[in-house]
């Protein structure tokens, strides 16, 4: 029995009077690929923002690999090995692709706030950045400012920036949203490759992607998790079909 | 003592209301357009100078109406032909535009009216002691100032709560992003608010210029204080601006009369340390001399410990 990668206990979140997350309990096992699905407005992104420290919780407890991270700030959580991507592409638009990746590598390669190293001279850092560029197949676009990339490329870069720090828990927020069929396929294989031997939690609307990638699925409806189960069981769960899949296919 | 308290109260009320006439316009402009207008106090100065010039020709009373209107029109023109074209370059450019404008207005004022103060005087008709309280005269002009500023306060309140444009402005105050979706003529409203805010500042200049001194540096003196007011009050909150105006007016007015330093205080407890250097300076500072720094100290502490300000709903 290993510790769960992420554990949420009785987590609530309200904005003003409206309660967005309503007593969520969730355990994500180490090494699994876990998908969170649910209708629009169910609070999936809010859940991600709580886990990654973007919002403070109203009440409840969040643990990362057995240590409490409730209401730590984002950078502290990131340093403990949790990294995330955003639903709306969130990179450094004025920097080149290569610079984006290199910046994302700086903290974990130990250079931190250094103002006595020159990035260009750091061999290990630049090699790592090259490797990662290769991994996300963007070596040829390295000099392009990230803001000028095509949409699918930006999404790939976003994944690159997210995994660069070598976090072992990765949160991806709708990584394939807005992509064409072929782009989605490529993204899925990229995600599969880069999250090998890591814990992945993802929010995703594309059901084929979810059933393709996920080991387990949690269904979030109106801020509550109504069930967590294997993909097959979720497919056959009548409550889920009512709440979510039914609507979607209708 | 009673006399000191009474007159300090009157003075701080006057100063506070003057500050509010400036800060209310600045607050409206900031909350509607997101622009921190560095030239706001310059419009105040222009009001004073215009009123002075007009009083040279036709006397004080026409100036009371014409000068603020002129300043308002000028403000509207600045918004229409200046700010609006800078808008596309982002907030920093907008802010710097107003900084440059403040700088330029000061230079132009010096160019037209000279470097020294102009003799802008209170009208003869109000130049008498209205009543004698506790042995000191209360001048009629001060009472007049108080009446005008309170009148303006009521007028502003009525416009904001009763008129259509006021309702739009109120909507903008509470939901800054939502106004453009309401389908109103947003650029027109902006121009009106900017012009109106400038006119208010101009009015403050008309009645404050002869109470204070009408000189080219008056904008640079008052401008930063007005920023302090809107930060302390909570950016975008009119109620906050009102409270903060009175508060700062009181702090500055009352501090002037307190001739006490830390070493006096220590002496009360029988302590008479004789340090040298910075500590000596520090102990010798009299409260009355801290007037210039108190507002800024107040603002910096406020921004650090309560960034929302007194009444603000959102962070600055």
């Amino acid at each position, binding site marked *: 029995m290993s510790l769960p990668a992420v554990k949420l206990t009785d987590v609530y979140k309200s904005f003003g009077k409206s309660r967005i997350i309503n007593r969520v309990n969730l355990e994500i096992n180490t090494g699994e690929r876990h998908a969170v699905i649910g209708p629009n407005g169910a609070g999936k992104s809010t859940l991600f923002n709580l886990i990654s420290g973007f919002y403070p919780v109203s009440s409840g407890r969040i643990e990362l690999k057995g240590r409490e991270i409730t209401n730590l700030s*984002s950078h502290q959580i990131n340093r403990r090995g949790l990294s995330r991507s955003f639903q709306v592409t969130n990179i450094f638009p004025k920097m080149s692709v290569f610079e984006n990746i290199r910046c994302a590598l700086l903290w974990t390669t130990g250079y931190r706030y250094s103002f006595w190293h*020159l990035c260009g001279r750091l061999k290990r850092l630049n090699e790592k950045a090259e490797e990662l560029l290769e991994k996300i197949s963007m070596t040829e676009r390295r000099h392009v400012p990230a803001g000028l990339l095509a949409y699918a490329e930006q999404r790939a870069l976003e994944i690159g920036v*997210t995994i660069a*720090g070598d976090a072992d828990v990765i949160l991806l927020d709708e990584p394939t949203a807005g992509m064409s069929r072929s782009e989605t396929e490529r993204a899925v294989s990229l995600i599969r490759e880069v999250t090998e031997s890591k814990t992945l939690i993802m929010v995703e609307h594309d059901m084929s992607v979810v059933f393709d990638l996920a080991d387990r699925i949690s269904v979030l409806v109106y801020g509550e998790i109504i069930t967590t189960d294997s993909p097959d069981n979720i497919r056959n769960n009548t409550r889920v079909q009512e709440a979510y899949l039914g609507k979607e296919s209708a | 003592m009673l006399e000191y308290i009474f007159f300090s109260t009157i003075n701080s009320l006057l100063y506070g209301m003057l500050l509010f006439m400036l800060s209310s316009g600045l607050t409206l402009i900031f909350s509607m357009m997101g622009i921190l207008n560095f030239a706001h106090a310059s419009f105040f100065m222009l009001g004073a100078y215009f009123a002075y010039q007009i009083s040279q020709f036709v006397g004080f009373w026409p100036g009371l109406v014409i000068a603020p209107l002129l300043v308002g029109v000028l403000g509207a023109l600045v918004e229409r032909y200046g700010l609006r074209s800078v808008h596309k370059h982002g*907030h920093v450019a907008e802010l710097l535009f107003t900084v440059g404008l403040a*700088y330029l207005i000061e230079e132009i004022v010096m160019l037209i009216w000279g470097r020294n103060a102009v003799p802008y005087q209170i009208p003869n008709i109000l130049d008498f002691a209205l009543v004698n309280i506790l042995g000191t005269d209360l001048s009629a002009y001060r009472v007049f100032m108080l009446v005008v500023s309170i009148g303006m306060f009521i007028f502003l309140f009525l416009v904001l709560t009763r008129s259509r444009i006021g309702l739009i402005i109120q909507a903008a105050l509470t939901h800054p992003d939502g106004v453009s979706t309401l389908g109103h003529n947003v650029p027109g409203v902006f121009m009106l608010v900017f012009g109106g805010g400038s006119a208010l500042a101009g009015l403050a200049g008309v009645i404050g210029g002869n109470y204070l001194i009408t000189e080219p540096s008056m904008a640079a003196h008052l401008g930063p204080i007005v920023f302090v007011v809107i*930060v302390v009050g909570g950016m975008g909150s009119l109620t906050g601006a009102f409270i903060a105006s009175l508060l700062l007016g009181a702090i500055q007015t009352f501090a002037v009369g307190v001739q006490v330093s830390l070493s006096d205080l220590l002496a009360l407890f029988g302590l008479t340390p004789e340090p040298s250097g910075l500590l000596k300076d520090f102990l010798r*500072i009299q409260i009355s001399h801290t007037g210039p720094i108190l507002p800024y100290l107040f603002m910096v502490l406020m921004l650090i410990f309560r960034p929302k300000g007194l009444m603000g709903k959102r962070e600055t």
Partner: protein
Amino acid sequence: MKKKDKKGFFMWSKHGLWIAAMLIVIILPFFFRSGFSRSMLSQIGIAIIFALSYNMLLGQAGLLSFGHAVFYGLGGFFTIHILNTVSNGVITIPLELLPLAGGFGAVIVGLVFGWLSTERAGTPFALISLGIGELIAASSLMFPSFFGGEQGISGDRMTVFALTGIRFGKQITIYYLIAFWAFLSIVLMYLLTQTPLGRLANAVRDNPERASFIGYNPHWVRTLQYALAAFFAGIAGGLFAVNYEIVTAETVGFIPSGNVLMMTYIGGVGHFFGPILGAVLVTFMQLSLANMTHAWLIYFGLLFIGMVIWAPSGIAGIIMLHEPVWKAKLMKRLIPSYALAVFPALILFLGTVMFIEISYHLSLSVDPTAPMHLFGIHFRAQSLFPWGITVFLILIGFGLLQRAIKRVRQSWGEVNLIMKKESS
């Protein structure tokens, strides 16, 4: 063989600019021999350091400060106090290293103020910086033992021993001392942009949220960047102290704070070398225009507002806009339209200058009825004729310039079209 040549050229193009700059700095005083121009060169050197340090905030970290002179002034005061301590024989520090006292003093203050003010960027930071600036400026008169009250603190640099054995009496020796520090500071500030902190300052400027999800605390990145900017501002202030041998409370005030903001912005915040151009131009303008006309502050204000409205990327931005055109060898297509625009611009400029000068003469000169002279022509400011010419020039210049600008836009359109075709 050919490959080697290419590499040699590469080395030159990489370091050539620095070497050329160094050479220019060394030979400049041989061309400018008067005391006035040499002291101006010294002032420019100080202004360059100050403006570049300001751009570490505004350009690189997106922090608009209205109180950067706090560190310039405090750096000056720290240096002059240390200078006096050295003069009194309490400690021994060579004169050449004294500006470091300003730098290190400023860095400590910078860490404190930086931490207090950079939790959030944008408007809150701008306001806190204004507050801190006013706070220090207003309190300078309350602490006379540090700020020296009205008359400031003065010192005598000749009483301090020099490491190099040079007697720092003449302006030229001080010029070379300033040039040395300026060159060193420019190189260091440039290298800082290439360090992890420098890159992260950009990252935090553009997207603080993302920066915190790659492990960085934006607040701490800004604080460090702020403290380093304070360091170089302190060096500039230290050089000021050594140069003038007196520091007054005005150096911490709003005027130098506004000044450095304007020179940096006019030079251009988006490119490293922008503030250098701004510092050279603005310092030159301030010193030489102030000799020529009393109305120079108006010209300065007009220039600043004009830049904000029409060229928010500054002089450096305008230059770099032409880089791709230059590379595509298309400059010859732009130059004719530029040449056409020069003429009406000159007319407008002339008209504006006349307008300002005549008004100035009328309202601020000792005797407005005395004849004034402008461009070698004598006339009476009261007569209508010069006013008529002025208005005529302004109107004609403005009208023609509108048409010329249309032409410039047109040729830019053509150039862009050609470049687009070539790239695709």
